[in-house]
C-alpha cells in the first residue's frame, strides 16, 4: 500500500498543472451530414418490410408452381386473380363489410362495458377486486368456447357473434386500462389534484392521458382478439341472416373444394389485420404516445 502511495506522489510531482486555449475544431469538416438517398431507403422500415414480403411471395409462387396442384396449394398469381375477381364482382366487399359491421358493434359494446368496469374499479377497492377476479377468470377463456352457449341464448345470428366479440374485447381492454391507471406516477396524480381536479375531470384530464400507452395496448390486443374470434365464429356457424361474413366466404369455398378462394379469403383477413394494425393504430401511436415520448 505504502509503496503504491509513494509512487503516486512521485508521479504527481512530475505533472505540472496547465491551462490551454481550445484548439480549432473546424478542420474536421461537417459535424453532421445528411444521409444519402440510398442510405435512407435501405434504413426505411416500410422498404424493409416490402423486401421481406417480396421474398415470401417469391418462395410461395416458386413452391406452388413446382407442386402444380391448385387444390392443395394454389400459387400467388392464382390467389391474386381470384381475389381480384371476387373484389370486382363485389362478393368479397359485401362479405368484408358484413364482418366489419358486426365487429364494430361488438368492439364498441366491449369498450363501453370496459369503461364501466374500470370506472367502477378505479372508484372503489371492491371494484378493483371484482374486476381483477373477473379478468383472471374470463381472460384465459377463449371467446370461441362461449359460442355454443351464445347460440343457445341468442340463436343463430349477429347477437351471438356480438356476444363472443364483447367477451374477447372486454377483459383485455379493462385489464390493460386498470394496469395503466395504477401505474400513473404518484407525483403526476398529486399535481393533478393540486390544481383542484376531482372525479370525472381528474380521470379524463390526468388518468386517461397518463395511462394512454397501456390503454392503447389494450385496444390493440382487444382488436386482434375480436377479429380472430369473429372469423372463427363465422367459420363455425357460417351464415347469419342473409349475408355471411368473411369467415363464411372461406367456409363456403372449402365446401366447394375451391382452394384459391379459401386463400383469397385468408389474404383478405390478413390484409385487414395489416391495415388496422399498421395504418390505423400506427397513426394513432405516432400522434400520441410516440409524440409524447411515452413509448419508443
Amino acid at each position: 500500500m505504502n509503496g503504491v502511495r509513494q509512487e503516486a506522489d512521485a508521479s504527481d510531482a512530475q505533472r505540472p498543472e496547465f491551462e490551454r486555449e481550445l484548439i480549432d475544431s473546424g478542420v474536421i469538416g461537417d459535424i453532421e451530414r445528411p444521409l444519402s438517398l440510398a442510405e435512407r431507403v435501405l434504413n426505411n422500415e416500410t422498404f424493409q418490410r416490402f423486401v421481406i414480403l417480396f421474398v415470401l411471395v417469391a418462395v410461395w409462387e416458386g413452391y406452388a408452381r413446382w407442386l402444380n396442384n391448385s387444390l392443395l396449394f394454389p400459387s400467388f398469381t392464382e390467389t391474386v386473380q381470384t381475389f381480384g375477381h371476387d373484389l370486382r364482382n363485389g362478393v368479397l366487399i359485401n362479405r368484408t363489410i358484413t364482418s366489419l359491421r358486426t365487429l364494430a358493434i361488438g368492439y364498441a359494446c366491449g369498450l363501453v362495458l370496459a369503461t364501466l368496469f374500470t370506472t367502477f374499479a378505479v372508484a372503489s377497492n371492491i371494484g378493483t377486486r371484482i374486476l381483477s377476479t373477473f379478468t383472471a377468470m374470463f381472460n384465459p377463456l377463449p371467446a370461441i368456447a362461449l359460442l355454443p352457449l351464445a347460440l343457445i341464448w341468442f340463436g343463430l345470428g349477429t347477437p351471438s357473434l356480438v356476444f363472443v366479440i364483447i367477451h374477447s374485447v372486454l377483459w383485455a381492454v379493462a385489464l390493460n386500462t386498470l394496469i395503466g391507471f395504477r401505474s400513473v406516477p404518484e407525483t403526476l396524480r398529486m399535481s393533478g389534484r393540486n390544481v383542484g381536479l376531482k372525479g370525472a375531470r381528474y380521470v379524463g384530464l390526468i388518468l386517461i392521458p397518463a395511462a394512454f400507452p397501456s390503454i392503447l395496448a389494450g385496444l390493440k390486443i382487444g382488436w386482434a382478439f375480436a377479429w380472430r374470434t369473429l372469423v372463427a365464429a363465422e367459420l363455425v356457424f357460417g351464415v347469419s341472416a342473409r349475408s355471411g361474413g368473411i369467415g363464411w366466404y372461406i367456409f363456403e369455398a372449402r365446401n366447394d373444394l375451391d382452394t384459391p378462394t379459401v386463400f383469397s379469403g385468408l389474404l383478405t383477413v390478413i390484409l385487414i389485420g395489416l391495415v388496422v394494425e399498421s395504418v390505423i393504430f400506427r397513426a394513432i401511436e405516432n400522434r400520441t404516445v410516440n409524440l409524447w415520448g411515452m413509448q419508443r
Partner: protein
Amino acid sequence: MTSALLEVNGVTLQYKTPRHLVTATYRVDFSVYQGDRYVILGPSGCGKSTLLKAVGGFMAPVEGTIRIRGHEVRAPGPDRMMVFQEFEQLMPWKTVFQNVLFPMKVTRKFSRTEAVARANAAIEKVKLSEFRDIFPHMLSGGMKMRVAIARAMALEPDILLMDEPFAALDALTRRTMQQELLALWDQLRFTVLFVTHSIEEAILVGSRILVLSPHPGRVRAELDADGFNFGNIDRSEFGAMSKRIHTLLFDDDAKRPAERVSA
C-alpha cells in the same frame, strides 16, 4: 406586524405503512409571512416532505391546525401550488406551453387570453421561450424543473410549495437553478415554502430557516438567513451559520449514530 400568511400550529403527522404507524412530525409550529423564502431543513426522515404535503392538503394532521390566510387547509387547492422533486410532475402529453397553461385553464382563475399571455410570460421568465412547443421528454432535468416552476408561478398562488425541487439535478445545474430562483424572487417577491436536506441550499435560498430534529420531526430552531447569498458564500459568517446549523442538527450525535445530511 401583519398576520401570517401560513400558520402551522402544533401539527403532528402520522402515516401508515403496511406494517407500522409512523409519526413523521410531532407538534410542529411555524408561521410564514408574505414574501418569505421559508426553508424547512432537516435530515432525511424528519418528516419535512410530509409536512409540506400536509400544507399542500394531501394529508390531514392528527392534531394541530394548518391555516392559510386564516382558513383551515382541508384539501389540495391551487392557492398552494406544489413543485415536486420528480420530473414526472409534468404531463408528458402536453407541450411546455400547454403544461404551463393547464392549471390556469382548469381553475379558470384567468380569462383565456390573459392565461395565454401569463403562460408565455412565465415561460419567458424561466428562459424557455425557444422550447415553448416542445414535449417534456425532449427537455433536460433542469429545463423540466424550470417548466414546473413556471407552471406554478403563472397561476400566482398564495404560496409556492417546493419539495426538494433541485435534489434530482446535477450539482452545476442545481447551482444555476438556485440562482435563477433567487433572481425570480427578486423580481416577483412571491412567498415560497422550500424543503431541503442541504444546509448550504437552505442558507443560500432561504430568508428564514426552520431546523427540524430527526425522527420524529420536532422544531429545533428558527433562524434568520436573509443576509446570505452567492456573494458571501466564501465569507466566514456563512461558514459560521453553516456550522451553527450543523450543531443544531447533530449536537446530540454523541449519544446516537449520526443521520446523514449532505452539506
